[in-house]
């Protein structure tokens, strides 16, 4: 069996599994967010945080909840790291420096999981489990909650009420993420991922010398790392590490986990807005881009014509032999098209164009299928932009799902799409213009530029993967990347929730033969085109000077 064929089979298996899971999982999530019953444990939590889960919130209240909760999360995680040196169960690691602690706290709260530290050499059990793992759950739940609020904006009319943030967030954890992560962790443990609280072992190496290994609650961390599209690895090598991702099966399983919720949310959306077909149009858009990107990645990685690659059969640098090019490419595309950022191979080592594909995946705004929640609201914003332009071409004031896209809606959508390009381009330009940041590059030329461009693209889009090679643990990068993650996460959320409020207040416009049918393949094609062209135009010059210059040389 050739490697290409193996890759195709793995992809088909993955698509099959996702096709099976998305209906029940999507329906289940829709039920979770529309039920008015509270579980016992949830009632305890509400009592604990002093929240009333039954009050309906307008968008401003919902946003306050998101921001307050996240601010507390950042503060708690920051303090936990700063105090690591005096806390028990820290494997003897010292406290984290302020800039790195800030960066890491922001990174995990924003669902980015950018890591400027080496997990096995910096974070003890307490920070990993009480800090990082907790945020892996709640940051993902916040993302889904915001997406659900936007969906409610579409589904409801004549009321600006978007649900209750505390109920949405808590249910996301208790009813969706925890049970799924629990099952996934058991599968991972069964397949060889480690799960313990042991200390550091010194192990003799096969070729002589020795190496330090530490144990940890890895399998459980791994499960939510993928499931919540977090991506922060227990170990620095992330999913390339055999303790995190031991076999080709776990590799495929982890890809499945990181895609499961994002690819099921369109179903949830369809059910909640009362038209499963509308959900399928969104799902088809996501799937088209995802499959096309995998195809492109295979094309550049398998067929790379350079002497070293010819000998190796293909470009194997930076990829695990046990996963091969096919599966590594699927992982790389999936992790950058979601906001996961976990890696089982090193994107910096991909061919010039292959590296460009991972970059472009994030630049699209991580919407195919995107991060948990953030992917759905991101693509819905793009749908609004596409509807606005195309809707005019059918001779009506544009409307989407029965809601008119007027001045206020387009203003908010336009602001949303401005945020990440502004962060990525301005911060990359600043890093390139200033004398010191460039010292962090390992490579020169176009590849060096790609390292910095990648870092800001990853942080601003809350991906968290790195174009290995950049030394990001400097004050400049810790601070600016931290700011990029914060603004890249919460500023768009402000616009999404404001938009949800605005949509929810409208009365619905009935569908007629004159309405643009957004559940048809034509619209899916249009949406794919709009996403690619708008992103492509924004980043073309930057991509030309980085991956394109390298890949076409």
């Amino acid at each position, binding site marked *: 069996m050739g490697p290409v064929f193996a890759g195709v089979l793995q992809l088909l298996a993955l698509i099959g599994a996702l096709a099976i899971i998305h209906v029940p999982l999507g329906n289940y999530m829709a039920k979770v967010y529309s039920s008015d019953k509270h579980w016992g444990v949830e009632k305890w939590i509400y009592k604990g945080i002093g929240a009333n889960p039954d009050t309906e919130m307008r968008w401003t209240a919902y946003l306050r909840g998101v921001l307050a909760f996240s601010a507390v999360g950042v503060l708690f995680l920051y303090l936990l790291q700063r105090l690591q040196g005096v806390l028990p169960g820290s494997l003897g690691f010292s406290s984290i420096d302020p800039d790195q602690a800030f960066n890491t706290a922001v990174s995990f709260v924003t669902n980015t999981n950018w890591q400027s530290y080496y997990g096995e050499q910096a974070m003890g059990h307490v920070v990993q489990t009480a800090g990082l793992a907790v945020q892996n759950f709640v940051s993902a739940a916040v993302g889904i909650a915001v997406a659900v609020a936007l969906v409610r904006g579409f589904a409801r009319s004549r009321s600006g009420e978007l649900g209750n943030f505390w109920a949405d967030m808590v249910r996301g954890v208790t009813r969706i993420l925890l049970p799924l992560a629990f099952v996934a962790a058991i599968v991972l443990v069964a397949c060889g991922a480690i799960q313990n609280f042991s200390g550091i072992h010194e192990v003799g190496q096969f070729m002589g010398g020795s190496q330090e290994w530490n144990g940890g609650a890895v399998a459980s961390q791994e499960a939510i790392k993928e499931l919540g599209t977090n991506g922060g690895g227990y170990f620095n090598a992330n999913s390339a590490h055999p303790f995190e991702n031991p076999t080709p099966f776990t590799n495929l399983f982890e890809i499945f986990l990181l895609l499961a919720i994002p690819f099921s949310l369109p179903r949830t959306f369809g059910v909640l807005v009362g038209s499963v077909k509308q959900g399928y149009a969104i799902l088809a858009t996501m799937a088209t881009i995802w499959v096309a990107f995998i195809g492109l990645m295979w094309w550049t990685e398998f067929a790379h014509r350079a002497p070293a690659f010819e000998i190796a059969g293909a470009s194997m640098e930076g990829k695990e032999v046990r996963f091969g090019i096919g599966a590594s490419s699927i992982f790389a595309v999936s992790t950058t098209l979601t906001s996961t950022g976990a890696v089982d191979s090193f994107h910096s080592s991909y061919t010039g164009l292959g590296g460009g594909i991972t970059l472009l995946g994030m630049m699209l705004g991580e919407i195919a299928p995107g991060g948990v929640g953030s992917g759905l609201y991101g693509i819905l914003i793009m749908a609004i932009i596409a509807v*606005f332009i195309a809707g*005019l071409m059918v001779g009506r*004031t544009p409307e989407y799902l029965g809601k008119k896209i007027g001045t206020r809606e387009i203003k908010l959508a336009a602001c949303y799409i401005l945020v990440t*390009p502004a962060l990525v381009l301005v911060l990359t*330009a600043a890093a390139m213009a200033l004398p010191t940041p460039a010292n962090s590059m390992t490579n020169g030329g176009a590849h060096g530029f790609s390292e910095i461009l990648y870092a800001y693209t990853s942080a601003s889009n809350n991906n968290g993967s790195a174009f290995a090679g950049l030394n990001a643990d400097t004050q400049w990068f810790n601070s600016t990347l931290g700011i990029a993650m914060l603004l890249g996460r919460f500023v768009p959320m402000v616009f999404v929730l404001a938009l949800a409020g605005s949509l929810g207040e409208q009365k619905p416009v009935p569908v*007629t033969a004159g309405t643009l049918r957004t559940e048809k393949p034509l619209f899916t094609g249009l949406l794919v085109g709009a996403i690619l062209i708008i992103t492509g*135009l924004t980043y073309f010059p930057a991509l*030309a000077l980085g991956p394109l210059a390298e890949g*076409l040389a």
Partner: protein
Amino acid sequence: MSTATPTRAPHSDVPTGHKSPEGRVGAGLFDPKQLVKSLPDAFRKLDPRVMVKSPVMFVVWIGSVLTTVFSFTDPGDWFGWTISAWLWLTVIFANLAEAVAEGRGKAQADTLRRAKTDTVARRLVEGREERVPGTELRIGDLVVCEAGDIIPGDGDVVEGVASVDESAITGESAPVIRESGGDRSAVTGGTKVLSDRIVIKITTKPGETFIDRMIGLVEGAARQKTPNEIALNILLASLTIVFLLAVATLPPFADYAGTHLTMVVLVALLVCLIPTTIGALLSAIGIAGMDRLVQRNVLAMSGRAVEAAGDVSTLLLDKTGTITLGNRQAAEFVPVRGTTEAEVADAAQLSSLADETPEGRSIVVLAKEKYGLRERHQGELAGAEWIEFTAQTRMSGVDVDGRKIRKGAAGSVITWVEERGGAVAEDADTLADTISEAGGTPLLVAVEDSAGARILGVIHLKDVVKDGMRERFEELRRMGIKTVMITGDNPLTAKAIAEEAGVDDFLAEATPEDKMALIKREQAGGKLVAMTGDGTNDAPALAQADVGVAMNTGTSAAKEAGNMVDLDSNPTKLIEIVEIGKQLLITRGALTTFSIANDVAKYFAIIPALFAAVHPGLDKLNIMQLSSPDSAILSAVIFNALIIIALVPLALKGVQYRPVSADRMLRRNLAIYGLGGLIAPFVGIKIIDLLISLIPGIG
């Protein structure tokens, strides 16, 4: 029998179709001479205070200033000067588009101004006339107008009847009747009384009259950006910011790559990327949309109404005059038992010879066509005494050769026969009822001769649905628009006509309150409703409807309440108004799509030109094989400027509109403006590059 004689022939009983009709002012076609004529205006609009209203073009304006200043620092650089020149041309072309659009309205405004020449009003004060300038009239003043007078201001006739020449505003030379009371009392300042004497109560302040508003509208002075236009402007501004970011952050990237980008090149790149095509044409599209309405003699009081017209999903159409011809026509003669059809036809014809109403004429015509009865002239029948229709008798007829023939409403004729001791055929009632049930109007024909008084039969008068209406409603259905017929008829009649015409629904025995309730019900479901109306009792409904088209013949109250006025008073035009609204939105969307799709080719021209020297691999992106970097950038800039001029006719005329479903329309427009927008600049830039490379010393 008779109905009120129409004071004015209905305008076009046959729908005018979707082809651009022969407009009174400026044909729909684009005349290149207008470009030259509008040049001075285009330069005048270079004022930054004017430019700032269009964010996209303002950025080009700033870019032009920057490159020009930069060129002064390096006067020997032909490239900088050429780019600057073309950037200025880009701005001027944009201004030109707007100026041409406005220019077309100006001609009409001038005609209107002539009608507005200072008039002297004959104001009535306590019964005495005094002469005051028209500008001093106040609301509530009474003025007298006699044959030859120009009406000094808008108002309602409170006394008398007159024929009025309204050609100054409608372009229609046939005079119209204006009379006190009823729904034809409104007169417009600037029109001329042709006969008789009327007293008018002024209802509008000078300076705010209909003609003043019309001048403002056609000149574009009163134009405000419509909601959708504002939304589109926001999107265009945000795209401009995105591209500003992409270009402004480029210098540090380029410096790192080992090449320095000059200000000229950066501005050129920026101008090529921002959506200048739609930015330049956006306001021209809006002005031209209003203009298209004006050409069809419709005045929209706000651009918002025009946009709303495109969104309408329910059309309320009055039956009479819109769906059916204004009058009923005879369809058949039905004899009662014991008589023949020919007898009925003969009697009916005789009784109608003097009846000049359309119904009466139609009886004579039917008798001739179907029974070969020659039309007898009134003179042939010596001694005939013609009985006119009156509201009391509700019958008309003739007494000739000892025969008395009557036709009229069933009840009246039966009474007439019974009074004369005649026997009423027992099936007369049944026949009349059958006709009523089928949606027709029965007229009984009776005779009194030597054999006594008796009923002969029934004339079946039918509402005649206008030609082409069924197809028109079919089109509307495909566009997703529901049509509701409004009629005062009983439900049975209404249902029959509704079925024949092919409307989706009907409202029978409609009172103004019913209409209002219907509109509110539709609106509660999120639908936008359009209607026409002319009477004062229509005013509340006109105001409630999203698009309310008042007939110019209607009352001031109706005209005040609606947001459009149809100068031709042709209710069928509502359908055209909807199409114009849609066309306006489609044109905006199509040019926006085109503009954005254009950018792809421009990148492929400019990026290799900028960076192939330091990253030779990027030359592979030069798929157009442009001759040199300078020529590539220049070609893109020139294309970007010329495409604006090339699209001015499209912006003014509007994208072709066909009433098809949204899906088909989207497919078609995406293919033309999306795909076309991707491909066209590749071809255009290549051709311009070829031409530039022919110039010696360049390329």
